[in-house]
């Protein structure tokens, strides 16, 4: 496959349209409607004689892209990685993995990590956002994964062969997918991540839940909700800053073949900005895969 676009809002679909018309084979992977579908009325976008709903604009955008030959796959993206030669990127979903010459991140902006006391303070001292990077440090140890969905399960499964014990803390939610028996599930709301003094440093020691239970954990892996553009960028090593993905004016990130567009890059959270950035990213990605062939 030439190009995978993650997200089917105005940025992702515009990127797909421009890349497709530039001759690339394009697949959009989407977990469904995003921020646009929630907009009741759009009347500040070019070419609208009468206001339309966000949901209508989104549906029309997708229909138009399909007409031009863009493929759509409905799935949640749980991982993003690259090969050793930097020549291909791999997008993982719960049931499949897809390889592409270029990937465009357009999955919208994610809300900031919830304010669980201890989470920010213990980052790099037992709190991790990347299981594949840090599983090695928890050989035979007890780890907690924070999250309830496919993303959290994906992280937990990476940890299983390394850690002695893997727990899933769903923070008051029911697990969104069947959890293997080897993973212990805690559904209570999380009150705080507690620290201990060990080896001369303050580091993660336990997860305290609102029922008062304190459960020992050597590491905490954060994977709440679904993996957003910034989570995926962080995992592959793309530069992020203040919960946004950093790009150049051509919407390229520092990772070869990885582009980003729309709300995830920060700035105006508007359809017109998302569409523009999608167009730039789509053209740049199409050119990138063409020159590599």
């Amino acid at each position: 496959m030439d190009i995978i676009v993650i997200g089917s809002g105005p940025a992702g679909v515009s990127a797909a349209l421009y890349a497709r018309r530039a001759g690339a084979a394009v697949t959009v992977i989407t977990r469904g409607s995003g921020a646009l579908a929630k907009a009741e009325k759009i009347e500040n976008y070019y070419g609208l004689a009468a206001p339309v709903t966000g949901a209508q604009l989104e549906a029309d955008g997708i229909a138009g892209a399909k007409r031009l030959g863009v493929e759509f796959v409905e799935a949640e993206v749980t991982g993003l990685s690259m090969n050793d030669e930097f020549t291909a990127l791999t997008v993982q979903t719960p049931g499949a993995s897809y390889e592409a010459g270029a990937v465009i991140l357009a999955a919208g902006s994610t809300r900031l990590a919830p304010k669980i006391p201890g989470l920010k303070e213990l980052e790099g001292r037992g709190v991790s956002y990347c299981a594949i990077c840090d599983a090695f440090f928890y050989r035979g140890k007890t780890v907690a994964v924070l999250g309830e969905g496919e993303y959290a399960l994906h992280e937990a499964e990476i940890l299983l062969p390394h850690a002695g014990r893997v727990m899933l803390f769903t923070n008051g939610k029911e697990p969104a997918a069947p959890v293997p028996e080897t993973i212990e599930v805690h559904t209570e709301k999380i009150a705080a991540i507690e620290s201990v003094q060990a080896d001369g440093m303050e580091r993660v020691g336990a997860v305290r839940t609102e029922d008062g239970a304190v459960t020992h954990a050597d590491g905490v892996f954060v994977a709440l909700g679904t993996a957003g553009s910034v989570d995926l960028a962080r995992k592959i090593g793309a530069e992020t800053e203040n919960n946004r993905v950093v790009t150049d004016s051509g919407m390229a990130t520092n990772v070869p073949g990885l582009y980003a567009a729309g709300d995830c890059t920060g700035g105006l959270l508007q359809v017109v900005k998302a569409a523009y950035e999608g167009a730039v990213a789509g053209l740049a990605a199409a050119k990138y895969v063409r020159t590599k062939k």
Partner: protein
Amino acid sequence: MAVIAVNKENFKAEVLQSDKPVLVDFWATWCGPCKMMAPVVESIAEEHPELKVCKVDIDENMELAQQFQVMSIPTLAAFKGGQMTGKTVGYQAKENVLKLFA
């Protein structure tokens, strides 16, 4: 200057006893963000002769990772006069890494 690969045998001589401030990149082959960090670290080595730039493969040097409390990679650590004076975790742009020596 090139990036010097250090290990548990020569860490003391190369890093702790260095006359110059030292940047140490704790990395591993399986870590995607580490791969993206490598060219940044190499360019710092080339552009900043006032620094010594080293890298530690934590897969082969787990003791060093433990000793310096590295629990996430990539970790970039600054050493001055035999002491670790600061560190960053995850991919960082060059200017953020250089702030460790400001």
